[in-house]
């Protein structure tokens, strides 16, 4: 069986390998996870991918490209701060790592490292970022640790 698309893959893994669930039992908390995941995957990531950024840069230069990226990331991050404010614990939606964290962690990492964003307006996300950086599972998944890593 072949599964493509990170969301489809995660839901497949969740259903096939139920140990250490990626979603909480409570329906409301599950919905918070789905929303956080989609803020990243539909409202931020598509607008920061290489194809789109290359297009903007070719047409208007790298200044515009950075402004574009910052605008969309900041909009998404502001929404995430509000969404998660009343639900976050040690991680995004409680004290366990769930689906929302899987989408947030790489996105926050990209904002800080790739786009060098100032995230002081997003204290919750910064706190989550610190928590993710303590996790061996997250450290092992970092781009720099992958077999195809090329230093830039």
């Amino acid at each position, binding site marked *: 069986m072949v599964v493509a*698309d990170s969301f489809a893959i995660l839901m497949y893994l969740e259903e096939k390998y139920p140990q250490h669930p990626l979603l909480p039992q409570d329906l409301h908390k599950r919905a918070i996870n789905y*929303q956080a995941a989609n803020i990243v995957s*539909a409202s931020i990531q*598509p*607008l920061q991918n290489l194809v789109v950024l290359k297009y903007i840069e070719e047409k208007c230069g790298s200044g515009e490209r950075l402004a574009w990226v910052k605008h969309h990331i900041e*909009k998404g991050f502001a*929404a995430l701060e509000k969404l998660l404010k009343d639900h976050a614990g040690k991680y995004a939606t409680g004290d366990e790592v769930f689906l929302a964290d899987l989408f947030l962690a790489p996105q926050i990492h990209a904002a800080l490292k790739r786009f060098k964003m100032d995230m002081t307006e997003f204290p919750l996300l910064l706190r989550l970022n610190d928590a993710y950086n303590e996790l061996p599972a997250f450290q092992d998944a970092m781009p720099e640790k992958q077999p195809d890593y090329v230093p830039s």
Partner: protein
Amino acid sequence: MMSSSSKLVLYSYWQSSCAWRVRFALNIKGLAYEYRSVHLRKGEQFSPEFKKLNPLCFVPVLVDGDIVVSDSFAILLYLNEKYPQIALLPSDPQLRALNLQVSNIVSSSMQPLIMQSILKYIEEKFGPAERQLWVQHNIERGFQALEKLLKDFASTYATGEEVYMADVFLAPQISVAEMRFNIDMSKFPTLNRIYKSCKDLPEFQASVPERQPDAEL
């Protein structure tokens, strides 16, 4: 369907393809809801009240008692879990994954790049001709991928003989591509066939923009 005692409330705009997905899904599941219009062209999505519901200022938003869910993808997964009658996802793992993948291609790789605010930016910066090229490029790229993906799975609907989440995402997107952006759908025969099947459904017909309470015809 439109009673103030209905438990479900849907914030929608008649022309929003994302809200359309949820209208179609609610009809398929036989769930009554109260329709509340957010007039996007008038900027009602930026009102403080609506911003409280969804800080991203997008429709659709579903309110189910105390629970507020934004984003059509999240709303459909929530509805599917809370109201399991008439499932939006098949039980077979491969077809389930395929439905999620198709839904995500539409909701992450296509719609966000062609929504009004982005197109306005493209047109302001680069002009109307570039805007049309951008739209065409992004829609056709997505539809080509979907056509390949579904060629071997589709029969009456996207992944078989029942309507599922993939159809719910596809049908409104195809309609918008054809009607608003003049995309030639004959290049995508599988998608076209799926769309025709959806158009025959009363649940789809009731969900079309022109039949919504806030339609301006």
